[in-house]
């Protein structure tokens, strides 16, 4: 339902040893929001994304997914999730797309896509295969369903990885620099799939360096700097007169996005 909060992050903190990478990040994503997270490397944007599905354990703060808070224990020896089962459940509701695709190399593309639905969600295999074939057609690689990841180009692998995430029917999709490992000529095919997803109303959080995506597809842009949110807002404002000096300087490195 539009207007419902799908993801809520409150004062999220993360330290590696004495180095504080996230210094209190707060953000909400409503249903259908497409949020681009921008920032220089080292600004903490990937860590932020990875803390949401607990691939990194946050040192403090709260994460709520679709109204359910991830319960954490904060002890002297550090923080840890209170319940592994809850973490697994939350992760099954969050799609994650990695920079390096991270497909399972020993499985075909189709097996990659049905793996989660069949073995995590315990849904009937025939049903999952039918859905997976639809998803693969949607991302344009239906003909590759019996190929293995090593047989695909980077762009095709990333589209397969997106299909794998979508097969879980996630409430929010997290993208961790999905096009950064791709040759320039393959970036477009992945961005087209992401744009189509956005237009269907998928709630998305996208860490990216693609300024055109941030500007033209997302409805909110968040700029991170040194572990904090420097500024955020609608792309028209962020890329227009309302930009903070730091953001203006940051996008200066990319030239003028179309």
């Amino acid at each position: 339902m539009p207007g419902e909060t799908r993801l809520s992050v409150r004062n999220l903190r993360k330290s590696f040893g004495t180095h504080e990478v996230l210094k209190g990040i707060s953000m909400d994503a409503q249903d259908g929001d497409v949020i681009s997270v921008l920032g220089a490397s080292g600004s903490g944007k990937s860590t932020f994304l990875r803390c949401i599905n607990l691939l990194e354990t946050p040192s403090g703060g709260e994460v709520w997914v679709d109204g359910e808070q991830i319960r954490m224990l904060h002890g002297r020896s550090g923080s840890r999730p209170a319940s592994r089962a809850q973490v697994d459940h939350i992760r099954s509701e969050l799609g994650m797309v990695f920079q390096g695709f991270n497909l399972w190399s020993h499985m075909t593309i189709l097996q990659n896509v049905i793996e989660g639905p069949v073995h995590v969600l315990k849904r009937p295999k025939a049903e999952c295969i039918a859905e997976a074939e639809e998803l693969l057609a949607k991302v344009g690689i239906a003909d590759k369903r019996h190929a293995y990841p090593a047989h695909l180009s980077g762009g095709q692998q990333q589209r397969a990885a997106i299909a794998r995430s979508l097969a879980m029917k996630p409430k929010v999709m997290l993208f961790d620099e999905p096009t950064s490992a791709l040759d320039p000529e393959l970036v477009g095919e992945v961005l087209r799939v992401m744009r189509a997803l956005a237009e269907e109303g998928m709630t998305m959080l996208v860490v990216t360096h693609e300024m055109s995506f941030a500007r033209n597809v997302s409805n909110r842009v968040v700029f991170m700097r040194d572990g904090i949110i420097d500024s955020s807002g609608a792309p028209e404002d962020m890329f227009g007169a309302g930009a903070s000096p730091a953001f203006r300087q940051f996008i200066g490195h990319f030239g003028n996005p179309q």
Partner: protein
Amino acid sequence: MDFAFLSSTMVTLIRALPTTLVLFSLSILFGGMLALLITAMRVSGIRLLSGFARAYIFVFRGSPLLIQMFLVFYGLGQFGVIRYSFLWPFLREPMVCAVLSLALCTAGYTAEIFRGGIRAVPAKEIEAARSVGMSGLLLVRRIIAPIAFRHALPAYSTEIVLMMKSTALASLVTVWEVTGVAQRLISQTYRTMEVFLCAALIYLVLNFLILQAMNLLEYSLSRHRRPFAPGLRA
């Protein structure tokens, strides 16, 4: 060439083949199961368990299999606890002693081979599995074990061949397998060359079959490393 002698020797040795095969398959089976346990302890991250696994691997890789076998066969009976326990009827059987020591020993080697396989599983693929909500046994069963096993297979097939040859040691604890029967024949006929050549031939054929089977298994598990279809990809 005395073909009549060679063929009668061959027939006698082949009658001992089932014993060799039982030794081999039971020790691979139990050794493999024990290796899984040791590997799990070794990579558990729990210091007590991984310490035990390290010690186990060190002891069984670091001492001669023959001595291990003698210790099991001659040594265990000296302990009253064992001699008067319900296990004794089993442990006084040479066959049981041989399988036990072969399995204990191969478990040490195999555990290290499996551990190497696990270390070769890409962290990225494990992370992807976690991100869809897999953890614990499901993660091991669906992702880690299949990938690790593929990596471990070449080294594991070498270990299996070594085990086939190690069954010959069981003859020294009075198990009448192929090598034991060959020695008995030699002591009756004094024709060392012919008898041992026949025995060697039997082991060669067995290992040839084992290696063929392992190659087939490896081939069928490595489709992802071969071209998708001819012409599609160089």
